[in-house]
């Protein structure tokens, strides 16, 4: 069932698309500008071969459409099929981004409405849809913080506070914006340690980045106080929206005191993950920060028409054109399908499902912090009676054999042997019960037949990989000689 690299099907002369002829007399090509290698190494294939290849390898993937992803912090929820149709309507999928606004009123209306909806759901005054992913939304926010402070002549604010439980994108973003990361400790209840926060706030504080609910799946109990403290120190509050799926209609970050946040439309608002992207990292903020947002944004004119505009103090554009528009269509459709009550039901059910899994497993897999959780729960892969060499990694790989995608593991970094489980609201109780039973069964195996866990997975397309070899002797493009050498080792 292995499928060789597509290059192995290549034969001179084949082609997979029936293209038109130029249909006009040729002019001579500027020979000195031509490439010299005749596209060496580029394959030649027919359509049947290409389709069969990519169909066959697709079956070697796990996906939401084939199974359950209890993948903490990733919100791997169902991607509605209606959205795949509407995003492909020719008026969206075949519209040029630079065509006149007059000829783009449908797209602009959709963007305007989505800006409005996202602002309302999060309690923010202004939204920009341009960022292409969560990390780009973060960079947008930190650049906006920086611009805001500088604009006020506040030039010494060079530090960004980041809890030790944060996603790696948070510190990486601060660094990319040229700011210094100051790490904050978590307390025993999984909240930010307030004393540590107070100690680290200073006139150098540009702001703080906080995920709430945090990566322990816990709602930050002191959120209002944290925002107050940061604001009093002259800093701004950045909300990482990765876990926004927990609080739709439950709480509005803008009301809690955040100044800025990004939305992961590919998590909370059902746009597909696509095996790693495209995402969409739209951002929202307070009126005070709105002048710094990237452009173009969309506004409605007095005559009812829509137009692009760039805020007067904009940090500039984050990417070409207007954002991952195809993702915006899907998010619009989702919000309009669910409505206010539907969105609240989403979060309520996501939280219900997570707590159900939590209580059904915590006697065997110790809970990192013993509290009611939000949309996800962090357990520890430390099973009583199992030998020490059974690690969370083994549990994760064994789940594969039972048909489940593993949870997020070893994250957050502050929890040893972390198993971070986010069931989402689009899974049935039946599926959760199967997962719970499987987790309990694996715990039994960990005690009785640990070798089975070490050997896992055995029922996947491949077994555990030699990742060291991949990094030490990297083969990063098709190279038949290097591959032959690998195979002969």
């Amino acid at each position: 069932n292995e499928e060789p690299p597509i290059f192995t099907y290549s034969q001179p002369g084949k082609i997979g698309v029936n293209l038109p002829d130029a249909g006009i007399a040729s002019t001579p090509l500027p020979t000195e500008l031509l490439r010299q290698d005749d596209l060496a190494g580029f394959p030649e294939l027919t359509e049947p071969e290409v389709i069969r290849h990519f169909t066959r390898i697709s079956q070697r993937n796990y996906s939401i459409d084939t199974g359950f992803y209890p993948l903490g912090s990733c919100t791997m929820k169902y991607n509605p099929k209606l959205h795949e149709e509407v995003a492909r309507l020719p008026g969206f999928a075949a519209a040029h981004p630079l065509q006149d606004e007059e000829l783009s009123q449908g797209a602009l209306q959709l963007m305007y409405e989505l800006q409005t909806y996202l602002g309302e759901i999060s309690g923010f005054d202004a939204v920009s849809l341009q960022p292409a992913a969560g990390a780009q939304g973060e960079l947008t926010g930190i650049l906006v913080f920086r611009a805001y402070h500088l604009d006020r002549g506040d030039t010494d604010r060079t530090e960004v506070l980041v809890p030790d439980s944060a996603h790696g994108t948070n510190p990486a973003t601060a660094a990319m914006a040229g700011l210094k990361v100051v790490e904050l400790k978590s307390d025993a209840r999984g909240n930010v340690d307030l004393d540590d926060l107070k100690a680290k706030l200073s006139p150098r504080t540009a702001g703080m980045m906080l995920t709430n609910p945090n990566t322990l799946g816990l709602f930050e109990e002191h959120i209002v106080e944290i925002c107050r403290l940061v604001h009093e120190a002259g800093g701004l509050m950045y909300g990482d929206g990765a876990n926004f799926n927990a609080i739709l209609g439950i709480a509005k970050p803008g009301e809690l005191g955040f100044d800025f946040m990004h939305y992961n439309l590919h998590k909370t608002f059902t746009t597909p993950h696509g095996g790693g992207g495209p995402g969409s990292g739209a951002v929202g903020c307070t009126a005070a920060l709105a002048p710094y947002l990237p452009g173009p944004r969309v506004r409605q004119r007095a005559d009812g028409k829509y137009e692009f505009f760039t805020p007067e103090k904009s940090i500039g554009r984050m990417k070409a054109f207007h954002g991952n528009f195809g993702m915006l269509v899907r998010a619009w459709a989702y919000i309009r399908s669910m409505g206010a009550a539907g969105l609240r039901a989403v979060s309520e059910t996501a939280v219900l499902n997570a707590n159900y899994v939590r209580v059904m497993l915590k006697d065997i897999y110790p809970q990192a912090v013993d509290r009611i959780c939000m949309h996800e729960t962090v357990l520890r892969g430390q099973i009583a009676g199992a030998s020490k060499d059974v690690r969370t990694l083994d549990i994760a790989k064994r789940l594969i054999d039972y048909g489940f995608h593993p949870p997020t593991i070893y994250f957050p970094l502050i929890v040893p042997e972390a198993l971070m489980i986010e069931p989402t609201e689009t899974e049935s109780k039946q599926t959760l019960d199967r997962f719970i039973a499987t987790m309990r069964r694996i715990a039994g195996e960990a005690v009785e037949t640990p070798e089975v866990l070490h050997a896992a997975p055995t029922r996947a397309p491949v077994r555990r990989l030699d990742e060291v070899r991949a990094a030490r002797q990297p083969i990063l493009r098709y190279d038949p000689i290097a591959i032959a050498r690998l195979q002969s080792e």
Partner: protein
Amino acid sequence: MTHYIPITDADRQEMLQAIGVSDITDLFTDVPAAYRFPPLRLPPPLSEPEIMAELHRMSELNAHTRRYQVFLGAGAYNHFVPAAVDQILRRGEYYTAYTPYQPEISQGTLQAIFEYQSLICALTGMEIANASHYDGATALAEAAIMALNVVRNRRKIVVARSVNPQYRAVLRTYLQGLDVEIVGDETPGSGIAEALAQVDDQTALLIVQNPDFLGRLHNLRGLGAQVQARGALLAVHFDPIALGLFQTPAEAGADIATGEGQPLGLGLSFGGPYLGIFTTRQKYVHKIAGRIVGVTKDVDGRMAYVLTLRAREQDIRRERATSNICTNQGLMALASAVYMSLMGKRGMRKVAEITYQRAQYAARHIAELPGYRVLADRPFFREFVVQCPRPVAEINAALREQGIIGGYDLSADEPQLGNAMLLAVTEMNPPAEIDRLVQTLADL
């Protein structure tokens, strides 16, 4: 419960009981009461037929390529998208999959991305490619950040004016916190030569585009050596379709080459999702941003694919990562891999040839029109500058009446060109359509 939520009322009761609370609202007591359960003022929900009808209505308020003849480019191009590409994109196994961090059950995505990297290397002549950036503009900005990390202690980036102005804007956005000087694009009408002249011993990187923003093709052979002799790196932003025929960034001696992958089977989609292509030399592999797929074996000795060299990435290295990028444009990389596989060597060459020939044809005929002038001081690939007898906005408005979307108005970017538009021609503009454009211009 909705059609997307499979938890029934009975389930909910059972689960609440198991959890030990009596009502779903009991799960939210950590949320300060004053802020709990705020009303969301959203329009009433719509059913599926209503969503479909409403979005169809809105979509038809937009011009699109099935209704209009499109001669607009400037960074987004109307090239043919074979139906086979979408057939693959619609497979749930791809588009509903997560990032392939669990390689045992992600071999589909991993192999496709590995093949994408390999195809991009073959297309560009470069040694390595990563698994994608958000778009061409951000790929270019990440190139600058990488150059600053490779060439230590230099804080100047030189960028030619002939690089897409949106890309130059993104470059400046990305670097605004990094204490870097960005120069080279000050003078209207200037290009690669003027930029090269500014490369000095403080310069980390020279950025050029070929074909440039105005569609012109340049012979860049030797440019890399010239730049490297001054201790800097060269980044070339390329057009993947032009590479079917024309000089590769590798032939220019580029250290980094970036491209916008949109023309590789992605469609226009009102500007996104597109695909940032990023390539560089093998020796810089530990400096690059983004994901990379490599080949290895499993414990049974079977060849397998895996994300590798991950110590560069944000989830491992945090504030010392090469970039904060996480989610990329993986599905678009897959789409372009399917496109390139379908086209193959012959197809890539043929699309480039048709595009080139038709652009020349269009330019020749427009140049013959009284009052119009085509800037053709250099060879051009797909786009060319037309100086018009009237403001471009007026001309485009008139073309629109005939179902034609005209060129990009250059008056804001290059005012010295006067009433100039940038016209784009591809294999999707048959000769008869070009003739109609010419005739329509003649009749204005």
